[in-house]
């Protein structure tokens, strides 16, 4: 179970709905510059986990729970994310985005929550 806390390093965690899939790639924060002769230079400021949580069918209640981390209901962030694969090391994250492709009323489908390590 993925849990999220709005408190400082720990605090009270709230369980998120069970995600169908969670991807955890490490992203590079930086930029790529291309020289005149066509070579590229990769500048790296940091390498950070990006957590993408894909949810299946969510009830409105569950969706509001997820949405609360995006719209400021739970504060401005950053938050603490406890990944079930690594519960011993909660990650300090910010919410990058929330998508909701569902046309249904009462149910939500295709909800994706993207979080990035601070």
């Amino acid at each position, binding site marked *: 179970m993925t849990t999220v806390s709005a408190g400082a390093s720990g605090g009270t965690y709230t369980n998120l709905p069970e995600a169908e899939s969670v991807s955890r790639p490490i992203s590079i924060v930086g930029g790529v510059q291309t020289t005149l002769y066509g070579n590229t*230079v990769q500048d790296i400021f940091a*390498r950070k986990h990006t957590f993408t949580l894909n949810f299946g069918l969510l009830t409105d209640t569950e969706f509001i729970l997820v949405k609360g981390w995006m719209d400021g209901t739970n504060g401005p962030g950053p938050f603490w994310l406890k990944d079930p694969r690594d519960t011993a090391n909660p990650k300090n994250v910010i919410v990058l985005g929330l998508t909701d492709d569902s046309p249904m009323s009462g149910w939500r489908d295709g909800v994706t929550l993207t979080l990035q390590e601070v």
Partner: protein
Amino acid sequence: MQASGWDGTPLSSGFNAMASGYVRQIVFKVFVNWTRQAAWTPNPVTGSGTGVQAGDDITQYVLSMNEQRDITGDTPDGARLVTGQGVASISIDLGGSPTSSAASGMAAMLWSPFASASPYYGRKRIGAQVAVFVGFDTGTIASPHPEYVTKFTGYVRSLNLSADNSRATLEALDPSDRLRQVINFPMVLSGDAFGIDNQRWGMNSQWPIDYALRQNGYLTSPGVRANSLFLMTCHGSLWPEYGTGQDCFAYTYADDFVSPRLTRPYFNDRFGDGLGMANYAPEVNTFDATQRRQIQAEYHFGQNMRLGIGGTATPGIQLEFRDYSPWLIVSGAAGDDNSMMDIAAITIDPGISQSVTIQRRFDGKIALSVQLDGNAANDTVITSNGSITNSDPPGIYIGAHLRLNSTTSVTATFNINGRIETVNATLTIPWANTNIGFGWFLNYWMGVRDIHITNDNTPNWASQTWNAANSSLSEGLNELDVLLPTKQTEQGLDAWSTVSDIANAEFGAAWFTEKGSVLFRNRRALLKGGYDLALTGAKHVKSVETSETVDSIVNHATAQLTPYVVQPYSWVWASSSQHGLHSHETITTRIVLDDPAYGVPTTFTWVPIGGINTSSWNGSGAANATNGYRASRTPEGGAPVTNLQFVVSVLTNVIEVTVTNPNAFPVYMVSPTQDGSGNPIPAASVGQPMFQVAGRLVQAAAPIAAVTEGTATQQANAGAIGVSTKTTSQTADTLDSTSVADYGEQLYPVPDSIWIQHAESAQDTTNELVAELALPIPTVQPIELVGNPCLQLSDRGLLDTSLVNGLSQGAYVVGITTDITADPSGTGEGGLAQTVQARMTAPPGAWILGDQDYTGAGATHSSLSRLPDPAHGITGTTRLGHI
């Protein structure tokens, strides 16, 4: 290029490799001295440092940064020579806390001046010191090894906050923003044309630049201390910064070893008699408990003293005491910031133990102790404590503190050995009750950076805080005949404006380095030198634009100069009103002259019948010059009074005369009916004011427009004593007829400046301007670069984009914009990027359009490459027309 890190440690090879690498781990730190700690040295590696308080490190809030450094000046747009003053500013976007989800961590609260919960609430935010460090991490994630160079030092200029997008912008300017103290120069008549008192101080523009900076704490060499008696900086003149000109002559024999119109003072072998302190020590009258005289002299040898390098592996300077075999190694190659040398000090105290001790390490870098007993076992080798770095430039300091009892003399001899030159210096200290001699015998010419004499009563090196120099100055190219103070009736210029004006007048440039030091570089220094780095199209250059424009050509330059004249002795002021003094009253009269007066006498003489023959004061009679007065017991002229007492204080164009009436009756400073001997004074004078001051007015030349057209002639001897009328101004004029024929006349009048005084300097200026600018040398700007935090203004780079445009030439940097931005995905634009403005350091190696005289490589058509086809450019531009 910055060759060393923020703390002077040489940058590692890994750092330099990463700077030119294809994958770069960038690190940066931003600190603000919110609490205004006096001693504040942030350490970017640890995040702490001397004086650094919690919250000073604001790196975690930084979203992006943009830093700009530019030299701006008066030369034409596109001209190869860019001069003037530099300004650096930085803009830092700040967000909220990355670790706190509390409302107080939001940027709109964190940076708000109204939010009391913010840790920065109530701070003196504006004006706080800012330090920015940028570098690379050459380690691994598991074992990081960040190395930083200082990228910016300055002060907060503004802090703006947008509450709606929750973002703040902090803007800071370099320390020039703080150099707003009005500078009032001492009055120096330095031109040898004046020949006053046979004094030939020599002065070039370096001296006033140095003086203005020193008044603001920017020191090229150690400054005046509490116990200073005399300090001659030698930075462009022998005129002392502290002490009097008479001191200088008495103790340095300046007229023996200073050549006329010197550009930099040098000791030579005529200085074999040494620095004479024969008349000095007795005046000090400082004795310690055992009645030994105390005096301390310090020499700072200039960075131009290219003493040898000990070897490629251990570069350094060796100082050897010939007879006693201790030695000193000072590591160092020329650095960009710290021109002050590490220091060794010598204490000679024969009254105690016949010992020589070089005991002090300066800046924590050198420690040395030498025993003079000849027993090698007692010798202590000077050692480095490991912190000597290659930021320390050549140059060396030698100080001596002498303490002698009445029966002892000592001679110490030492060498300064180097790869190229050897300096032998002999220190001889004979004792006599009224005479202490002290000298260095130098058998080769050697730049002396300053001479400093103090009456410190103990060898005080250990207690002195002589910080590393924060100023480095080129030799000035404008010789100055006169240094005039700001008139008391005028608003003076602040220090930085003054420095900028002086630099502009000779087409040099002054700016602040990343570390907050001041650099002044003359026009020759900007254009000459080797390459600091290579910028290639493969690794560094992202784009480059070149342009040729007629605007870059100057083939006719003129400069109007302002010579000064020193008028003969005469009355410079006479009272037009009656001054009355009550019995025993003292009054002070403040006299403000339009022009400064030189040589105002401090004595007053009762003016005899017939007046004083002022013409007798000139020539050999200067010492007879005197101020004059008459006084009477009644305002309409009664019995004479001849015993008024005067004190004269001269503040250049302001003269204060304090008059005291010692009598028990009122006195009026008017002509009485008779003089003190009973001779009648002419009736027309009786009752008329008689209170006048003598001196020699120093006046600028009259504008050339005041001279009837067609009759103006240049006066070669402008400023000569005895010229009683103002001279005309002069114009230096240089024209390149070949360039005029090719491109038409492109006239550039050098802006008028009071700092252009000397005909030779002005002519040099116009000559060199035309020499540099008569051909249409292309400019290469802007150049977009993969950023390198070490790049600095005036760096010379070998720019090689030859595969694209044939360009393989040197250029020097006159503007740098550095962007540090991040794309969250890491795949878009972002990272450490720079846009550089640059000028060529030399004409192109190929041909120049229209230059028929060029005979170098590529001059003939047959040797030219095929003209490039624009459709075959690297981007494969699509043609619009038919092939």
